[in-house]
Every structure is written in structure tokens, then in C-alpha cells.
């Protein structure tokens, strides 16, 4: 099997704070790869770097054989991403959100409509395609984001906590799409999640990161064996300790308050 993501000695510093500290790992093509860690461990920072949103302080990264520093647009074409926070335009319809993405990624006109329809059907949203996204539920938005991330036929899909805040039914649904994608289309899946049983069930390979450093890697079984744990959750807690992490207070919360004050109608 070939490596589709190769990370060597990747670092990210914000001033004095080291968010990602000299990590190296690789992802095999076609695998489901789980990147786990407590809040603030450096998962999202790493994903931001791998997806060109944040320049690394140092290190070498190859995505789909393209160098992150020099072939940025080729790297961008290679992956689709579902962000941790929603990234849809609520004032547009589902179809318009899909179309926007397709145009940005240069999907040929003659293929565009077919692909949008196929993907909306895959996530069971075809009959709602002309609804405004603001009328969608959390689970529907997630499904739409997954569909959107696939329009340009990426080799890799990044899923940053795609199931957070969703009910078990929707979670199951979403993971079944993901497993299906990986099996049927050979798309490499790079995911993060706090639900250890999800990672345990699906991931071919797991890397655990904490305080910006990789502290464990292998299959679910090998991690359990190494730590003498019964479940992945137990292994995870043994690796990362049980102290509660402080998540950064989101600026989104304060903005939401403001958005109300200013009247969301302006958007």
C-alpha cells in the first residue's frame, strides 16, 4: 500500500506556545485513519496545517504526493473536508451550496449536475435540495457538508469531529456513509472524534496526540495490548490521563450574542 499523507517533523508554534511539537506519521491510501486526542491536544491545528489553512512553523508534509509548501493548489484539489464547526452558507439552498463548491473546484459543467444529484441522493437530501440551509437540522447540515466535500472526487476526506452533537441515529447514518465511501470508492478517510467506540469500530489505524505530541499509534488492538486496556476508551485514558482539559472559550459564542444584537437579518 502507498502512503497518501506523509508528515515529517511537523511543528506549529503560536508565540511561545507550541501547539504541535515535532510530530511524524503517515496515512495509507484507502485507510480509515483516526486522529485522537483530548481537547486542545493539537488535532485541529494539525488538520488546519494539512489542509493549507495554517502555515506550519516547520516540517515536511506530503498530501497525495504533493508538497504542502510548494504545490498548495494540488494539495487542495486532493482532499475534501468537513470542518469541526459548520461551514455552510445558511442563506443559500442546499443545491446552491453544492454548486458554489463545484464551481470553486472547477468541476466540469457537464458532470456537475449529475454529481450534485448523486451525492445529495447518497445523503438522502435530494428532495430537500431547494430548501434554505437555515431550515436544516444539525444532522442534515452535517450530511450536506459530507456530500459537498465529495463533489470534486477527492482522494482524501478530512472529518473533524463530524458527529459531535448529533443523536445516535444520525451518527450511525453518517458513519455508514463514511465506511461505504472508503470501501466502495477507495477514498482515504482522516477523522477525529471523541467517541472512542466509533474509532474502535472503524479505524484501520489510530494515532493519539496530546500536548502537541504523538503518544501512541497503531491499530485499535495494538493500542489496547500496549496499554493493557479492555477498550480503546480505556487505552485512550491510560495514554492521556484523566485530568479534564480546558477548551478555549470560543469566540463564536460571543459573536452569536452579537449577531443577535445586530440582527441576523443583515446577513
Amino acid at each position, binding site marked *: 500500500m502507498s502512503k497518501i499523507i506523509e508528515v515529517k517533523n511537523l511543528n506549529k508554534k503560536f508565540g511561545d506556545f507550541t501547539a504541535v511539537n515535532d510530530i511524524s506519521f503517515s496515512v495509507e491510501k484507502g485507510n480509515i485513519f483516526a486522529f485522537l486526542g483530548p481537547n486542545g491536544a493539537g488535532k485541529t491545528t494539525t488538520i488546519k496545517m494539512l489542509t493549507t489553512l495554517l502555515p506550519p512553523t516547520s516540517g515536511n508534509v506530503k498530501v497525495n504526493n504533493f508538497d504542502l509548501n510548494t504545490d498548495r493548489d494540488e494539495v487542495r484539489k486532493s482532499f475534501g473536508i468537513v470542518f469541526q464547526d459548520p461551514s455552510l452558507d445558511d442563506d*443559500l439552498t442546499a443545491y446552491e451550496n453544492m454548486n458554489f463548491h463545484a*464551481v*470553486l473546484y472547477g468541476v466540469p459543467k457537464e458532470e456537475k449536475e449529475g454529481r450534485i444529484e448523486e451525492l445529495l441522493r447518497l445523503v438522502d437530501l435530494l428532495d430537500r435540495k431547494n430548501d434554505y440551509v437555515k431550515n436544516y437540522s444539525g444532522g442534515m447540515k452535517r450530511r450536506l457538508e459530507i456530500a459537498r466535500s465529495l463533489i470534486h472526487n477527492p482522494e482524501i476526506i478530512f472529518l473533524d469531529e463530524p458527529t459531535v452533537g448529533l443523536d445516535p441515529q444520525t451518527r450511525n447514518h453518517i458513519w455508514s456513509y463514511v465506511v461505504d465511501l472508503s470501501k466502495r470508492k477507495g477514498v482515504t478517510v482522516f477523522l477525529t472524534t471523541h467517541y472512542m467506540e466509533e474509532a474502535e469500530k472503524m479505524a484501520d489505524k489510530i494515532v493519539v496526540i496530546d500536548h502537541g505530541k504523538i503518544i501512541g499509534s497503531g491499530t485499535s488492538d495494538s493500542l489496547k495490548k500496549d496499554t493493557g486496556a479492555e477498550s480503546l476508551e480505556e487505552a485512550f485514558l491510560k495514554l492521556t490521563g484523566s485530568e479534564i482539559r480546558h477548551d478555549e472559550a470560543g*469566540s463564536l459564542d460571543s459573536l452569536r450574542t452579537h449577531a443577535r444584537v445586530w440582527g441576523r437579518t*443583515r446577513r
Partner: protein
Amino acid sequence: MNTVYILWLRQLKKYLRSTPRIIGSLGQPLLFLLVFGFGFGSIFAKAGEGSYIQFLVPGIVAMAVIFTAIFGGIELIWDRQFGFLKETMVAPVSRFNIMLGRTIGGATVSVIQGIAVLIISFFVGFKMHNPLMIFPALVFMFLTAFFFTALGTSIASRLMDMQAFPIIMNFLVMPLFFLSGSIFPLENAPKALQILSKVDPLTYGIDGLRYVFEGVSSLNPWADLVYLLGFSIIVFLVGRFLFERMEA
């Protein structure tokens, strides 16, 4: 080019779907038009300056344009906070095209808003000396809108939330508006005011609009055009620089 088009289309759709926003941003220019227009009209005429409505309308049209434009630029903050910006920033397209599409989109919306105010002003007695001059008027409106959208975008690329918005309005946009000769003639204003007005891009936008609407202006309309174009290009390039270094 497709990138620019789809970003432009998005701005336009969002604007047309938001009736409260359209009506809301008509409110302030109309208030200014009616209160100042009728309030100062007789004094202005007594001072021998002619019809105040004729003088005021280009300024009020510009007001509608710049307020909508600056807000269109600042909206970048919303796109960042609500996550949509990330979606555009991971796409394999140049930052330049993203910035250009956003700016042209914001500017188009602002011009529509300016036209709406212009139409309303016909009902309070405003007259254009030559109806065909609407076309050069659109050019001046668009350039003014482009400048202020790019300015808003530049500022927004450095701001993390909307809290600074009132500061921007009160300490940047309103002074630029008042210094531009929008509501009073600058000819007899104190020297300091006149000097400040020379570095205010809006001065040239409004002077140009006065020329095309009425056939009289204090500067050469071609000079207005060149200055406005120059200011717009500079602020766009600054904005592009900031935009490219912005964190999504």
C-alpha cells in the same frame, strides 16, 4: 473567472433575499435626505446657493452606497465566524480571485442600494440635467462602492469579531462622509477641512456624481475619476495583501 462570478452571485443572492437589510439600509439615507433636505433647504437658497435638494442628493446617494459597501466588506467577519470562509479558503483558487469576487459582489449590491435612493429622490423633487448621464453616474457609484468594500474587507481581515463595527462607523466612515462635501459645499469651509477633504476618496466620488447629475462640479470630473480609481486600486492591493495573510 468562474470563481469571481460565483462569489459575486452569492453576494447578490444573499442581498436580494434579505428584505429587512434592503429596507434597513435605505432608512438612514432617506432620513438624511428628508431632514437635511427640507430642514436646510430655505437657508441654503437664501445663501444664494440654489436648490439644496439638487446639491444634497449626490451626497445621499453616495451615503447609501458607502454604508452598504463598508458593511459588505465587514461581512467577511461573519463569514469567518460562521465558518463559510474556511470553505472558500481551502478551495484550489487564488486568494486574489476570492477577494476580487467578494469586492465586486459587495460593490454591485451597494450600487443597487444607491440607485434605490436615487429613484426615491426623484419623488422629493430631484432632477437630473441629462438622463443619459445615469451611465457615468453608475461608474462613479461603482468605483466609490469598490473602494469602500475593499476598505471594509481590509479592516475585516484584521478583526476577529463585530465589536469594532461601531468604532469603524463612527471614527472612519462618518468622518469620511462629512469631510467629502456631501452635505455642505467645501468651497467656503475652513482651510483645514478643505485639506482633509482632499485626501478623502469620497470627495472625488461625490464631486464626480455632482458633475454627472447636474453638469457642475468643483473639480475636473476626469480628475475625479482618476483619483477615485487610484484610491480604489491602492486600497484593493492593501486589502489583497492583508487577505492573503489572514487566518481563516
